[in-house]
């Protein structure tokens, strides 16, 4: 309910309209009422035809059997899903694992930078923001290829990691093999983390920047240590950024096949690689469609559970 009475002038509004009765809605002419629908029509139609309809087609494709020569036919062949999962579950699990690891790494790496830009950068703020966005302007494929140089066997980075015995630890964890980094899980996760890091930093920065600085002062006045201030004030208020950053990193990372292809080996293939090769090389459309549906379902379930637990449904 909106308060219409202004204090100091009691009864001023009461005389014109009986209290409690809302003003009768003015009926707009039909033509005006149709305006939003005309505005929506082209865009929504585009999405219905080129986004929703393809999903339906994909569902039907996943239930087809046949071959490229003989033609495909919808036979409601559900076992395709089981067979696809039985054959490609390693790639499936790997995708979710790599994407999850990359997301956690993005959060750990991105938070300090977002914090730095939001609270400590001063007049360097714009420069730092530009530097975060700037890599976007070089094609991401070119940048991913650059990691091949950075992580090559005889590169300085790998040499340093080896000298610091980091590779012993990662090798023991099964992330690297011997003194190699390229073509190992570590290289793929490193590429994924790198590629999606800006998608974590920007939402984090947006939510951190909105925090009222006086809250920090208040916490300090109440003798909170910097760590407590962060734990009780800053971090909870940045949660919307954490949630949207996590989603913006995890969802695309789970379907990515570029990093696994360029930086990995056959041992690091993700479900995206399988879908791509089944669709474009093997031409086994039903299996590819089934896998793509399974990926979508897995991501939707993961995201729904996560949003429920994070308790911020009104984010989007």
């Amino acid at each position, binding site marked *: 309910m909106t308060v219409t009475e202004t204090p100091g002038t009691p009864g001023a509004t009461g005389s014109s309209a009986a209290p409690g009765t809302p003003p009768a809605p003015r009926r707009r002419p039909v033509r005006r009422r149709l305006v939003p629908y005309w505005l929506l029509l082209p865009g929504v139609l585009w999405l219905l035809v080129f986004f929703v309809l393809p999903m339906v087609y994909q569902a039907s494709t996943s239930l087809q059997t046949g071959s490229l020569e003989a033609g495909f036919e919808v036979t409601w062949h559900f076992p395709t899903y089981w067979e696809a999962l039985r054959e490609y579950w390693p790639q499936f699990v790997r995708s979710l694992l790599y994407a999850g690891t990359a997301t956690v790494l993005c959060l750990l790496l991105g938070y300090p930078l977002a914090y730095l830009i939001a609270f400590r950068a001063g007049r360097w703020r714009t420069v730092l923001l530009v530097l975060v966005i700037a890599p976007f302007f070089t094609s991401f494929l070119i940048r991913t290829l650059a990691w091949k*140089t950075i992580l090559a066997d005889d590169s300085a980075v790998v040499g340093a990691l080896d000298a610091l015995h980091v590779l012993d630890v990662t090798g023991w964890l099964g992330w690297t093999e011997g003194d190699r980094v390229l073509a190992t899980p570590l290289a793929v996760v490193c590429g994924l983390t790198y590629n999606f890091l800006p998608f974590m930093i920007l939402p984090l920065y947006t939510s951190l920047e909105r925090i009222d600085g006086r809250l920090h002062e208040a916490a300090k006045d109440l003798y909170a240590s910097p760590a407590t201030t962060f734990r009780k004030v800053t971090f909870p208020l940045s949660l919307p950024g954490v949630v949207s950053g996590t989603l913006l990193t995890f969802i695309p990372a789970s379907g990515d096949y570029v990093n696994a292809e360029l930086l990995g080996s056959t041992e690091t293939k993700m479900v995206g690689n399988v879908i791509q090769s089944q*669709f474009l090389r093997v031409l086994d459309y039903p299996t590819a469609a089934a896998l793509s549906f399974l990926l979508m379902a897995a991501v939707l379930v993961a995201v729904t559970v996560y949003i429920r637990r994070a308790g911020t449904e009104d984010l989007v």
Partner: protein
Amino acid sequence: MRRLREKLVPLAGLLTLAYLLLPNVVVTVFSFNDPVGRFNYSWQEFSTAAWRDPCGVADLCGSLALSLQLAAWATLGATVLGTMIAFALVRYRFRARGAVNSLIFLPMSMPEVVMAASLLTLFLNMGAELGFLTVLIAHVMFCLSFVVVAVKARVLSMDPRLEEAARDLYAGPVQTFLRVTLPIAAPGIAAGALLAFALSFDDFIITNFNAGSTVTFPMFVWGSAQRGTPVQINVIGTAMFVIAVLLVVAGQFLAARRKRTEHLR
């Protein structure tokens, strides 16, 4: 010890920034390389040959021109359609509002392969010939949502009283829209358009599925990863980076100057 702890967060932040920029440094340095063999992965010798002849590789500049053209059309389509949707969503109350909101949100909450693959099944089933047109359709589709979000944010923060004021001053609906609403919404529309351009220009996954034998710039780079990467790719990557940073700096400079002169007036 206290001082060290205070410096810890900035240090970690700057390390992350270094991680973000390291590949760009490598791309730039290797654009001056004179590689032996087909691949440009190890440093050999300083050379400016690639910079003097950026189009010296077959199909490279053709693919670049195609990508620019594609991105321009996709931006136009997505911006027009997206702006219309954004205005409808913010300015009007109507029945299907929730459904439209979810329809906008869905393409952004789905792995790109899923969208790419499903679109391919549609085109295969329709017997459509894969090429420029199918890629353009796909790009408009996935850029649309991002434009809607960008424009919506701007329109939401607009003060509706400005439009009321215009109407009180006897401006017609068209006049109000053109002289008040559109200029205020312009930064949001521009941001959406820029985002659409960048997304379309750099898109690989959806293009990979729906391009057929059409080769956009990202497709060229992808192919070169298998066949051999010419140095010219690094040259173009570096040039794009430098041009974009210069544009951003120039924009900031102009904005700052305008602010100052407005203040003087």
